[in-house]
């Protein structure tokens, strides 16, 4: 078709202190194609994108846009060249309104003065294109859920008159309907001749929308393929560098434990205004209780109540049959709870502290300042979990912020496992995690269950819930709608329960 590709990156190299993040990577994207950029956590996808958009300076290589050599020094330069980007973590300003976030830097108005009316109107139009009329453009961005923020970020990127659109894991926190909407827009843009780079860990999505795939592994290029010519298993083995089998279907041993199994936590009508209506939950030892629901159905809120982050307006929590006050995470941890939050950046990592310190932190906090873990104990824990979870880090002393998103998530998991909890709440544990690691985490969930630990699993991926849960509680509009046990759990039933009566097409 077209002679020169829209974007050519040749021999890109990027080093960070102690890490070679990229070496000799090529990427070329044509106009009118959706190009998947795939690889395991830490493969260098985000880094490649940041080099392209001027966030990082590149050490080696060359970037050609429309055949002309460019070298953006700042994200602004990149935008001026016609590259519009949605970065991996939501990167907007939570304290400003939605309208402002969409318009920031290119607000309508003369001589630097703003026209607020036009700004709002424009924001509404932009959101309408993504079918997001429900969002109040005057609302503070931070008051929206992560998913909604993500959608606003995408809306902002689409607003630019760009030649090349980059989406770094935009779908990690979106539900199916939102993903479908996004894909529709992507296809339309593709039709308009845009080139799109799309990073995701969902292989279904890769096959649903992309035309071509570039695979990275360990900072190096593996190859470029046509999506249609690369079967799924092949793709996975390219990504992780070894042969794999398809994810095992729901195994037979996922029968719910008998009702007389020891119940670790029981909530009786706990509720919080504006977050969740009174809800009864029984979480048992040796079970994986899935919490399913659409975005905003109140799953995270429920978990936060149980873990004592938010205080409940009413209801009781019973731990092993005894009523306990649950007013702080500290108390929850003392009862043997653990909680892996969905918002890793804000609620999870201690960014400037080392992997080691992050990993032992919850255990140390539980023991208090005086009962210090010796260095040997710390190193034993670190070595154990870094190997067990295959955490990719330059050393135990590397600051965790220098790890890729997925590896940060694994360190956080390790942090909680180290406390040897009786109940572990996993809120979107596989968000932003590559396929290899995802399977490992699922195996881990099975192992935890087998070890007699109660697991509360929140996930937006129905398949994941189905594959892993012995019992599923479905929430809809901040209310428990039903509870499925054992063989009752199948995707279509779940879907129906989640969507409820007013199902959209």
């Amino acid at each position: 078709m077209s002679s020169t590709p829209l974007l050519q990156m040749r021999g890109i190299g990027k080093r960070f202190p102690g890490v070679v993040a990229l070496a000799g990577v090529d990427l070329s994207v044509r106009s009118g194609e959706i190009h998947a950029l795939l690889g395991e956590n830490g493969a260098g996808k985000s880094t490649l994108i940041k080099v392209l958009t001027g966030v990082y300076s590149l050490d080696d290589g060359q970037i050609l846009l429309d055949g002309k050599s460019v070298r953006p020094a700042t994200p602004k330069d990149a935008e001026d060249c016609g590259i519009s980007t949605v970065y991996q973590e939501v990167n907007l300003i939570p304290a400003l309104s939605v309208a402002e976030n969409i318009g920031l830097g290119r607000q309508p108005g003369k001589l630097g003065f703003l026209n607020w009316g036009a700004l709002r109107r424009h924001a509404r139009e932009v959101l309408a294109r993504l079918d997001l009329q429900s969002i109040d453009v005057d609302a503070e961005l931070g008051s929206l859920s992560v998913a909604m923020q993500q959608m606003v970020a995408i809306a902002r990127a689409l607003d630019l008159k760009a030649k090349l659109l980059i989406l770094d894991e935009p779908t990690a926190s979106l539900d199916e309907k939102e993903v479908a909407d996004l894909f529709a827009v992507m296809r339309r843009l593709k039709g308009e001749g845009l080139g799109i780079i799309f990073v995701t860990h969902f292989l279904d999505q890769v096959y649903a929308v992309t035309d071509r795939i570039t695979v990275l592994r360990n900072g190096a290029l593996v190859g470029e393929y046509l999506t249609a010519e690369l079967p799924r298993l092949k793709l996975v083995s390219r990504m992780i560098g070894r042969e794999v089998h398809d994810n095992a279907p729901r195994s037979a041993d996922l029968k719910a434990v008998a009702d007389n199994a020891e119940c670790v936590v029981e909530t009786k009508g706990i509720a919080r205004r504006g977050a969740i209506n009174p809800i009864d939950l029984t979480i048992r030892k040796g079970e994986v209780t899935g919490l399913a629901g659409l975005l905003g159905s109140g799953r995270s809120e429920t978990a936060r109540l149980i873990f004592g982050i938010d205080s409940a307006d009413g209801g009781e929590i019973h731990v092993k049959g005894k009523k306990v006050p649950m007013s702080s995470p500290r108390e929850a941890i003392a009862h043997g709870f653990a909680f892996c939050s969905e918002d890793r950046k804000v609620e999870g990592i201690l960014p400037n502290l080392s992997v080691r310190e992050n990993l032992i932190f919850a255990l140390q906090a539980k023991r208090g300042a005086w009962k210090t873990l010796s260095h040997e104990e710390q190193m034993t824990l670190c070595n154990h979990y870094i190997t067990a979870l295959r955490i990719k880090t330059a050393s135990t002393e590397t600051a965790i912020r220098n790890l890729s998103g997925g590896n940060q998530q694994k360190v956080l998991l390790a942090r909680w496992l180290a406390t040897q909890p009786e109940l572990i709440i996993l809120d979107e544990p596989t968000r932003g995690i590559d396929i290899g690691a995802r399977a490992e985490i699922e195996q881990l969930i099975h192992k935890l269950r087998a070890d007699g630990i109660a697991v509360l699993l929140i996930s937006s991926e129905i398949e994941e819930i189905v594959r892993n849960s012995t019992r599923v509680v479905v929430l809809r509009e901040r209310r428990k709608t039903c509870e499925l046990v054992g063989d009752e759990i199948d995707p279509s039933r779940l879907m129906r329960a989640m969507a409820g009566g007013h199902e959209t097409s």
Partner: protein
Amino acid sequence: MNPFVRRNLPLISTAAIFILLFASASLKYDGFFSGSVLVNIFSDNAVLGITAVGMTLVIFAGGIDLSVGAVVAYTSIFSAILIQRGEHPGAVAFYVLSLGALFGAFMGTLIHVFKQPAFLITLAGMFLARGMGFWVSNESTSITHPLYDSLSRFELSIGENVHVPLTALLLLATIVVGYVVAHFTRFGRNLLAIGGSEQSALLMGLPVGATKIAAYTLNSTLAAFAGLVATLYTGSGNPSLGVGLELDSIAIVVIGGTLLAGGRGHMIGTLFGILVFGTIQSAILFDGRLDSAWVRIVVAALLLTFILLQRAIVRSTAKR
């Protein structure tokens, strides 16, 4: 709740407490409830208020500027000396404002380019400007110039007893300009964005460096302007003016509901901050019985009460 009210809750609560404060002082002290007390609040706090407007912008961007008091002093003494040497006040105003701008740009550059904490660099700026002020002259100097004389006598009379001096008018004008800059220009919104998250602002393609440096430049220029207003107010230049002014200025911004960490705030809040601050000062003067030690303790207690009340209102209404 009305979304407008919800969004502007800190502002509305500040206004409400100000009214409460002013009303109770009026009840307690004869003659407090008068136009001239209100006018005095503006004219007596003109220097402080103008620096607070600039400080608001810097704090929007998550920065801070400890040098404003010293810049006020430096400007006042430097312009006094120049005028006494026979320079025209107009030309002098131009010089000192440019100097202020340069100084701010210098600090802003150090802060942004060398990634240094604003607290430290502006602390150094404070020492620098203070020392330079004393270097120019370590004694205060009267300004005798016909233009100055007529400007400092200028008053806008409202009714019989209320005369609004030029300094108060200049403060009001500065607040209006500050309001427009903060809320109706790209620059102002970029400041808030940077304060909200500098990393995000950068990724969103905003001119982070230029905006930050411009904020410090503007702030120092305003401080220089405040220095000029101080020369009008006192008819002299004085190298030891404004010691501790920066902390008062920051306190005003905070009273106004602007988050010290940056990214959230409102210029109208600063207006109320000035009013609250001025009202507390006036009430203490009307009382006239507190000794120096008690003045400090009472001011501190009132500040604390005010801030707590503000939070209580915001919290209780936000819950509903």
